[in-house]
């Protein structure tokens, strides 16, 4: 089976699809950390919230209604969180942040159970992305290719914004040294808010695109949290390139590990993470230095 070229093509596409989903989630988390030094364990809950909003709206507005409005709804929620909790905890140190956002996870899980119930929800793939197309000798689901394409598009867009625009330059300056950036007359507070909200919106988008592939359950945010954290720690906190590298590594190790070394698959990724932390405690491509 492993000598068949089709196998490698299929599994590579599967790995890419997982990587891109994780990228959408981890990029927001990592840039928020790089800029604000804030650890948001509730990032996974924002993803779950996005999936629930998309699932609810797809009933009335169709898939694209959910796809567009879910990130918006999560961004609004993120803005609320920013003013109520995040802002005041920014300087409180990682321990306080871990705990406040750990508490938020508890609240979020029960809130989704109260609003949407305990039963998993499913939403259909939009009709023109349904089905498969032939690609390099294999039949592959169009919707999964759409996820890969979306991830690449967001990556291109973020790269462009960060490297070619004034806002991007400000963010890079802020990640390098936020005090210095403030001295240069950059409104750091406004930038923090902007980045946080955009990060939340991306998590919501990830939830919305994942919803038709996976089932929408109250604990989906908790399930995705650990992979997301692994991605950003392997990649190096705070860096866009790190998020890309971490997502790809996770996606490929997870996918090929699951089919080639099934007995070791779940330990494999943690072993890799431990190895990275021992040899390069700051991750593979950290934002600074």
């Amino acid at each position, binding site marked *: 089976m492993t000598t068949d070229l089709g196998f490698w093509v299929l599994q590579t596409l599967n790995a890419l699809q997982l990587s891109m989903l994780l990228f959408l989630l981890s990029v927001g988390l990592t840039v928020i950390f790089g800029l604000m030094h804030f650890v948001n364990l509730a990032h996974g809950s924002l993803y779950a919230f996005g999936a629930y909003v998309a699932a609810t709206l797809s009933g009335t507005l169709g898939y694209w209604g959910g796809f567009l409005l879910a990130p918006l709804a999560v961004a609004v929620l993120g803005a609320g969180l920013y003013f109520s909790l995040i802002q005041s905890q920014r300087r409180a140190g990682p321990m306080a942040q871990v705990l406040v956002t750990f508490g938020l996870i508890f609240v979020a899980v029960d809130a989704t159970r109260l609003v949407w119930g305990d039963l998993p929800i499913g939403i259909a*793939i939009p009709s023109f992305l349904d089905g498969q197309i032939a690609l390099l000798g294999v039949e592959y689901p169009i919707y999964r290719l759409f996820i890969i394409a979306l991830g690449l598009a967001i990556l291109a867009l973020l790269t462009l914004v960060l490297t070619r625009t004034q806002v991007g330059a400000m963010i890079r300056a802020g990640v390098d040294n936020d005090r210095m950036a403030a001295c240069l007359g950059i409104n750091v507070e406004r930038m923090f808010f902007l980045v946080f909200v955009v990060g939340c919106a991306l998590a919501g988008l990830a939830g919305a695109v994942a919803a038709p592939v996976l089932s929408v359950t109250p*604990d989906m945010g908790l399930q995705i949290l650990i992979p997301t954290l692994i991605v950003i720690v392997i990649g190096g906190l705070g860096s866009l390139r790190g998020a890309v590298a971490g997502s790809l590594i996770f996606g490929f190790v997870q996918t090929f590990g699951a089919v080639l070394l099934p007995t070791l698959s779940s330990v494999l990724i943690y072993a890799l993470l431990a190895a990275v932390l021992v040899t390069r405690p700051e991750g593979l491509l950290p934002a600074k230095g």
Partner: protein
Amino acid sequence: MKTNMRAALAGLATGTAMLAGMMSQAHAEDIKVGMLLPYSGVYAALGQDIDDAFALGLETFGADAGATFDIIREDDEVKPPVGLAKTKKLILQDEVDVMVGIVSSGVLGAIRDTVDGAGVPLIVANAGNDEATGEACSPYITRVSFSNHQVNTPMGQWMVGQGVKKVFTIAPDYAAGRQMIDAFTAAFTAAGGEVVGQEWPAFQKTQDFGPFLANAKASGADAVYVFFAGGEAISFVKQYDSFGLKADMPLYGSGFLTSSLYVNAEGPAAEGVITALHYVPTLDNPENAAFVAAFKEKTGRIPSEYAVHGYDAARALVEAVKSGATDRDTLAAALPKVAFTGPRGDLRIDPATNNIVQPIHVYETVAGPDGLTQKVLATLPAVADPVNGCQMPSVN
């Protein structure tokens, strides 16, 4: 004067109440039921179905049982240590006469010794691990739900009869997944079929089944046989369809895959999937018609297989009480002797293992007027499970 009057009235009222209490005690036994279910955690919806249907069952059958039933509910959170602590509370502090519930096999494994040691009858209303009515069987544990072996074995022969010769299996890598697939594999190969490949994705850690589906596709099997439940079942069925496998390799499985509880979340991807289970809400018999109507009226939902476990657990308890059982020992002795015709058909308990014996229904998920529904293709006869090392000591 006024106060005196009031005091007298109050005294009269109290006296009457006491008298009534004494009279009811003289007439009816008060049976304390300890209900241990997950009311939170991943199986909360299952717990709710069982709980609602148990209450319905007591209302339906318990009126003339000559007893009142007092239910004490505890949440096991699907965590074995929590389940064990709550079991000890129910047995030692609340001093319940009988326990009902248990969704997770892990929780059942954790509380087995405590229940057995304390001599408290337990009616298992879901957990299907084979050991519970095999090598770890107990005269105090009666199962009215199913066993992993029972639900999957009949499909082996039936599929060979349908012309399916080569099968690829996929199930989560944990005890229940292994038991379900092993039972199917044994029956399928015994009937002349061949299992050409197996995948065991990590349990509760796999959301993307794409990598395994690719292997299934490459295996050249006629069909795929799987076991998944809950959220994993929804993800799996949808992803199976999205890879376009359904057309070339029909999807078969253990009936939990397309349970009525989840099937509408799976949507059109579930159409045409053929599975086997001990209950589907579309079974055509008067007992089921009455059950479905009553459950719908009470909850607004269609009863799932989990609901029927709760309903039949209540029925079994009532039947045991009607046969004269009043306390832990007599209930434990009476429960394995109950037999009745319920929504699932004719049910009895196998005295060798205290596991239920029931027919298994093969059904196809089809589109109906209000979403997806279940079309029963065949009803396979009830067969008692093998004893699996159970040496049942007798009570008393």
